């Protein structure tokens, strides 16, 4: 029984962590930010938390020993019913914390059996915000059974065991769909104040995240001024968007202005189809040597699959002179990093590129013939 339950505990720990991982990721802003705020939320050093989390044996904390015994068994029963591994002491604490997972236990066990046990510390940090606490809610878990909806601990026993425990401050399993709040010693335990406290802590956690997101906000204390900063930041970002849209609206006709409309279309297509990113790397060589064919062969291999460029034989002769109209100097190359970020996007859209290049062939055939004549003369 023991080894099997141990392994089950291990797998369900991983299951728990994986499920929580998904929940956290779906509910929150990027994980790194949530990580820092969670570790800030935790009152416990990480190592201890993870120790508690991963120890499948009886609970380590002294205050837990007493309620751990009798409370462990009903959860073992529950665990046995559902087939999960929540029966063990620490696992039972987790089960008390996340009883919604009882309903999904079976699924999580099945899915997690293949998952790696060594979850990143970030996820395990969110789990043990409950682990230092004693198994206070075991009776409550027993009472509530398998309700998977959002709930809070009633905490009639919370006060009693809170005295036994280290009197950690109330914690908020914030990024889960339900909230467990521990009453501090001597605080009211009626549902209204609990709900308010939960809300306040939720809001505080989110404010912390926002403070990290907005530069220069972490030093400000006080909700009102932080909100002011956030409002200013959003307004400045929106103003920047307006300015940039004006720049783009102004720059577009200039693109037409530099070249003919055909070339503008070409450049627009090229811009969205990234050969322009490939071209700057080819140009210096092309312009130096004046023999374009070998370089364009190279270009074909580098940029797009053969069938696409098979149609493009006409075009590379004139594309380079046209693009030389734009000053692709070295300062411009820094922007190509950004265009290269959209590389992957455009790699997806081969069909679009094919269609557009067909149009390109049709539109620019005249120019290509003209430049071919010029190139032949040079050769």
């Amino acid at each position, binding site marked *: 029984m023991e080894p099997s339950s141990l392994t089950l505990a291990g797998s369900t720990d991983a299951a728990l962590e994986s499920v929580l991982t998904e929940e956290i990721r779906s509910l929150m802003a990027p994980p790194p930010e949530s990580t820092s705020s969670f570790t800030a939320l935790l009152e416990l050093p990480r190592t201890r938390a993870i120790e508690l989390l991963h120890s499948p044996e009886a609970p380590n904390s002294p205050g837990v020993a007493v309620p751990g015994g009798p409370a462990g068994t009903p959860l073992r029963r529950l665990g046995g019913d559902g087939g999960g591994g929540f029966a063990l002491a620490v696992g039972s604490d987790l089960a008390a914390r996340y009883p919604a997972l009882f309903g999904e236990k079976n699924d999580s066990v099945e899915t997690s059996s293949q998952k790696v046990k060594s979850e990143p510390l970030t996820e395990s940090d969110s789990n043990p915000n409950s682990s230092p606490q004693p198994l206070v809610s075991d009776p409550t878990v027993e009472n509530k059974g398998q309700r998977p909806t959002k709930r809070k601990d009633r905490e009639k026993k919370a006060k009693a065991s809170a005295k036994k425990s280290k009197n950690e401050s109330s914690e908020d399993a914030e990024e889960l769909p339900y909230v467990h709040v521990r009453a501090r010693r001597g605080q009211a335990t009626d549902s209204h104040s609990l709900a308010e406290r939960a809300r306040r802590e939720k*809001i505080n956690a989110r404010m912390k995240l926002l403070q990290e997101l907005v530069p220069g906000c972490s030093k400000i204390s006080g909700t009102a001024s932080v909100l002011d900063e956030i409002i200013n930041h959003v307004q400045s970002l929106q103003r920047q968007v307006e300015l940039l849209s004006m720049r783009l609206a102004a720059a577009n006709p200039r693109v037409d202005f530099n070249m003919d409309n055909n070339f503008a279309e070409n450049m627009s297509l090229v811009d969205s189809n990234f050969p322009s990113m490939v071209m700057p790397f080819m140009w210096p060589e092309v312009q130096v040597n004046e023999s374009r064919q070998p370089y364009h062969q190279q270009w074909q291999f580098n940029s797009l699959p053969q069938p696409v460029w098979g149609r493009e034989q006409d075009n590379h002769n004139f594309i380079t002179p046209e693009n030389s109209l734009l000053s692709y100097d070295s300062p411009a190359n820094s922007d190509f990093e950004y265009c290269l970020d959209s590389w992957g996007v455009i790699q997806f859209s081969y069909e679009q590129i094919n269609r557009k290049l067909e149009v390109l062939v049709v539109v620019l055939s005249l120019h290509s013939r003209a430049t071919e004549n010029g190139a032949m003369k040079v050769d």
Partner: protein
Amino acid sequence: MKNPQRSPTNPGSLRSRFTQVFLQSLLRIRKHNPTSSSSSSHGEFLKRCRRVKVAAYVSMARAVGTRRAWSRATLWRARNGERQRNLLYGRCSKSNSRERSLGKRKRKKKKKKKRDNEEHSFGHAKKLQKLVPGGEAMDFCCLLDETAHYIKCLITQVKVMRSIADFYSL
């Protein structure tokens, strides 16, 4: 020079999705309004600016998808236009009725509970609600959440737009 074969770190990322959609919309705008700078009047230029701005927001909302309330709100607003905003508090439209009814329910819930704890931040929250699209139908907690995601997306949007603008202004 950078290796042209270098692939992006995340081809499905928000930034790449936004770039794709935004470039497509820019192309469309340029196709529909092929005016050169000499012939365009000031009014047309302003109209074009507005179109580009709306395209930027809508393409960002599309890149985000409908997971977020603010993206849903922008898409709905773009689809229905300004005059529909008057109907926002009256009738229910199909796409947004769920949001608004949720918002109303949350507002009622707020009134039942003690409000004095949150009053101190509500003054600023109203301003923030106006800034963030779809912010009116949200309680403070969700508003903060949406604001965080909105700021993140705005930063991405500004970066991409700036790079595109620099690219074009060469």
